[in-house]
C-alpha cells in the first residue's frame, strides 16, 4: 500500500520545510507578535487602572466640591442671618438714638423757648416799668406843678412806704 507507507524523501522535505518555517517564524513573526500582544495587554491594563484612579479622584473631588458647596451654603445662610440681625439692631439703635435726639432737641427747644419767654417777660417788664415810670413821670410832672400837690404826694408816698 503506497498510501500507508511513509516515504523517506517526503518526510525529509516535510521536516526541512517545517523547521525552516518554525525557525523563521519564531524569530521574525511569533516573537514580535507575542511581544506586541503582551505590550498591548500591559498598556490596556495600565490604561484601565489609570481610568479607575481618575474616576476615583473625580469622585473624591466631586464629594469635596459638594461638601464645600454645602459649607458655603450654610455660611451664606449664617451670614445672611447675621446681617439681618445686625440690620435690625442698627435700625433699633438708630431709632432709639433718633428718639433720644428728638427728645433732647425738644427739651432744648423747650428750654430755649422758656428762656426766650423769660427774656421776653423781663424785657416786657422792663419796658412796662419804663413805660410806667414814663407815664408816672409825665403824670407826676403834670400833677406836681404846684407845691401843695407835691407835698401831698410825698406824704401819700411816704405813708405808703411806711406802711410797706
Amino acid at each position, binding site marked *: *500500500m*503506497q*498510501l*500507508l*507507507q*511513509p*516515504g*523517506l*524523501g*517526503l*518526510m*525529509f*522535505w*516535510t*521536516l526541512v*520545510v*517545517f523547521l*525552516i*518555517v*518554525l525557525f*523563521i*517564524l*519564531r524569530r*521574525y*513573526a*511569533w*516573537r*514580535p*507578535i*507575542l*511581544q*506586541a*500582544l503582551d*505590550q*498591548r495587554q500591559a*498598556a490596556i491594563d495600565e490604561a484601565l487602572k489609570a481610568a479607575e484612579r481618575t474616576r476615583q479622584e473625580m469622585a473624591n473631588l466631586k464629594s469635596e466640591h459638594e461638601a464645600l458647596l454645602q459649607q458655603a451654603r450654610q455660611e451664606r445662610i449664617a451670614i445672611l442671618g447675621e446681617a439681618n440681625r445686625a440690620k435690625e439692631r442698627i435700625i433699633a439703635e438708630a431709632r432709639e438714638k433718633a428718639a433720644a435726639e428728638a427728645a433732647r432737641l425738644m427739651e432744648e427747644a423747650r428750654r430755649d423757648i422758656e428762656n426766650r419767654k423769660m427774656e421776653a417777660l423781663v424785657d416786657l417788664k422792663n419796658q412796662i416799668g419804663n413805660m410806667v415810670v414814663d407815664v408816672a413821670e409825665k403824670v407826676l410832672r403834670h400833677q406836681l406843678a404846684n407845691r401843695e400837690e407835691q407835698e401831698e404826694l410825698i406824704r401819700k408816698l411816704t405813708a405808703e412806704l411806711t406802711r410797706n
Partner: protein
Amino acid sequence: MCKCALVVLLFPLLSLGAGGNAAPVSSDQAAPAGKDKKFNAGDMIMHHITDSHEWHFLTIKKKDGSEWHATIYLPVILYTPGEGWSAFSYHKLHKAGSYKGYALDSHHKIIRTDGKHFYDFSLTKNVAQLLLSMVLMIALFVSVARRYQRQGIAAPRGLQAAVEVIIVFIRDQVARPLLGHRADRYLPYLLTLFFFIWINNLLGLLPGAANVTGNISVTATLALLTFILMMTGSKRDFWLHMFSPPGVPAAVLPILVPIEFLSNVVLKPFALLIRLFANMLAGHLIILSFMSIIFLFAAMSLAAGIGASIFSVAFSVFVYLLELLVAVLQAYIFTILSALFISETGATHSHDHEHVPATVETKH
C-alpha cells in the same frame, strides 16, 4: 505492528480506492492507446491522492484522439549508496521510460533497473506544495509581524486582526492552560504547527493542489516532532509514574507497565499522525468518489450522468464545506493534543497527595 493497525483502521476508508486499484491502468499511461479507454474510478482517485513527480493540471483531448497534458514535470533527486546522487527532470524519465539507471514501473513509481536499493529525495508534487506553503506562511506572518512592529500597540486591522485572534486563542486556550509556565517555550512550535496544518489543509482543498496533510509522510513527520518534544521535555516524574506507578500491586506491573508505555509513548503520537492523515484523506476520497459517480453513470447513459451530476455536485459541495470546517478542526486538534502530550510528559507532581496530575488526564 504499525502497518497492521493502520490497515485495520483505514479499511473502511480505503476499500473504495483500493478496490478500484486492482487493475492499475493509469490514464497517463493509457493515453497513447486512445479514445475508448474506460473510466476507472479507483485509479483516478488513487492518482489524485498519492504523491507524484509531476504536477498535472488538466488534460485536453484533441479531435484526432491524442491528448494534451498541462503538466509541470518536477525535479527528481535520487541517492543510491555507492553511486551517489543524481538529479534530473522527471520529464526525461517520463519520456524515455528509463534514465541514468532508473526506470518507471507500471505504477509510475521510480525503480532502479539493476534492482539496487536507493533513496528518493525528489521534489515531488507534495514537496513543491510544501515549499509553496512555506513561502506563503513566511510572507503572511512576517508581514503581519511587521505591522505590529510598525504600529506598536495600536488596534489590529485586517489580516492582522484575523491572525491575532487565532494566536491569542492558541496562547490563552491551548498553551497556557496546558503547559503553564512552560507555555512560552512551546508556543512558537504550537503556533507554527497549527498554521502549518491549517494552511496546508486549505491548500489541499484547492482544485489541482496536492493534499499534503492527507499524506502519511507529512503527518508522520509532524507527529515525530511532537514525539521529540514529548521526550526532550519529559521529567523524571513521568517515567517514574510509568515504570513504578504508586499504589499498584507488584503482580500487576508486568501487564500495566507495557500498556502504560505503549499508550503514553507510542500510541499518543501515533494517534496524532493517523487522525490528521485519515481525516484529510477521507474528505478527499469522498469528494473524488462523488465526482467519479458522475462519470460512471455517464458511461451508462447521458441522462443517468446528468441526474447523477446534480446529486454528486450537491453532495460534493456539502462535503467540501464540511472539509473547510475539518481543516481548521484537525489543525486545532493536532495542536491541542500536542500541547497536552507535551504537558503530560513534562508534568511534575509531588507524591504527597493522591495522584492528582497537574494537567487534565485524558485517554486517547
